[in-house]
């Protein structure tokens, strides 16, 4: 298997999956390379992400990185969340095969897109 057991765990048992009815920032992005789609709901209060949920239609790496990124930004300040990189997400899940590196861009893009939505 080309994936780490941690990544497979986040794929099989995704944390923070679902929608957030009281979200005040929503971002939806699609990966132009392979067509994967991610939607991210954020609840922001006092310049901080207090809750987050995601939905992703995509491969195992896309789902796992979506889930991990959503979980990690809860509790972060907006500037901290904005600074999350795709490399960081991929590395935290034990790295991705070269051909799957583009999958992690979905999550980092979704975070930035959702934050842009927050006014």
């Amino acid at each position, binding site marked *: 298997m080309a994936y780490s057991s941690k990544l497979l765990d986040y794929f*099989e048992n995704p944390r923070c999956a679902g929608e957030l009815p009281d979200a005040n920032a929503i971002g939806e992005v699609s990966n132009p390379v392979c067509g994967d789609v991610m939607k991210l709901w954020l609840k922001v209060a006092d310049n901080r992400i207090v809750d987050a949920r995601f*939905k992703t*239609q995509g*491969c*195992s790496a896309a789902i796992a990185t979506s889930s991990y990124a959503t979980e990690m930004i809860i509790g972060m300040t907006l500037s901290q969340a904005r600074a999350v990189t795709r490399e960081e997400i991929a590395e935290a899940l034990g790295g991705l095969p070269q051909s799957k590196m583009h999958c992690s861009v979905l999550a980092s893009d979704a975070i930035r897109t959702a934050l842009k939505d927050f006014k």
Partner: protein
Amino acid sequence: MRRIYLDSNATTPMRPEVAAAMIPLFSEDFGNPSSIHWFGQQAKSLLDEARQQVARLVNAESSEIVFVSGGTEADNLAIRGIAESQKAKGRHIITSKIEHHAVLHTCKDLEKQGWEVTWLNVSPDGLVDPEAVRQAIRPDTVLITIMHANNEIGSIQPIEEIGAIAMQADVYFHSDGVQSTGKIPVDVKKLQVDLYSISAHKIHGPKGVGALYVRKGTPVKPLMTGGGHERNRRSGTENVAGIVGFGRAAQLARERLESETEEMRQLRDRLESGLKARIPSIHINAEKAPRLPNTSNIMVDFAEGEGLVISLDLKGVAVSTGSACSSGSLEPSHVLTAIGKTPDEAHGSLRFSLNAMNTVEDVDYVLEILPGIVERLRELSPYYKRA
């Protein structure tokens, strides 16, 4: 964990009889078939027997079978061999948009070297129109190469009709028979092909060996120079062990073809009707076309193929997908694109390919676990609304 293998268009397990036939070749029967002494002649007679077994499977003469390293080499030898030998006559080749990469990339390479290639479209069911072949033929056409059965969706091309057209136009005709051989009856004389590729490991034989049927008198320029083995068509000391295994696999495929074809078809149909009954919004590719009895290519809306493959693998079931997410190139399968599927549709493709060793229990296990896997992935999709 229980492991179920449903990826037999990729490769098949060797039959025990095949492995057993190969064993002596690794010890006492080690001779070089080109040697005139006892050891060599012993190997030679095994080679001859295997050649006859492979020839019989496709109704060819023994002398028309050239052993090579596999399907890819067979395709290369056929296409480049004719292109090279016929280049004074013309440099035009006709093929389809759904060929295996061994044909597709070989034709692309020839295009770069100055040959012209006509890439025929296929119908939404994955079929080449023989009339389109006829119309594509020009005075400088030297080769038509159309696969017999497609590896991804299983559609079976009207090879006999195309063969008649090629014969009438006096153009050499190659067909990649890697997926069809051993799954449906193949008769090279009836098909009127001049060249036909076969791979051993797709018919429960070993990897690293295949054959090209070369109809008597067809001028194929060898790819390699050397000792002139295989009647000057493929130099290099023969892979005797592999070839003997191939021969045995071919013999067993021929003996069991009728019963195994029917068994596979029943399992495949059980799988498809079961999936349709249990999972809403799925579509079967090439469903209405003449199709290999072992192949089922489905598209699942609101789920992605690579995720489905990994989920099934985690539960012990091996299948494959044409989704961009599983390929190194990040492009969806050229076959699904050619039958008119959008990248989005191809995204959710799943290929099941069975072999004669699969059981009802294998299929029922998939029917038991796949609905839950699909539902789980759909629940994660931002676009999916539960019915």
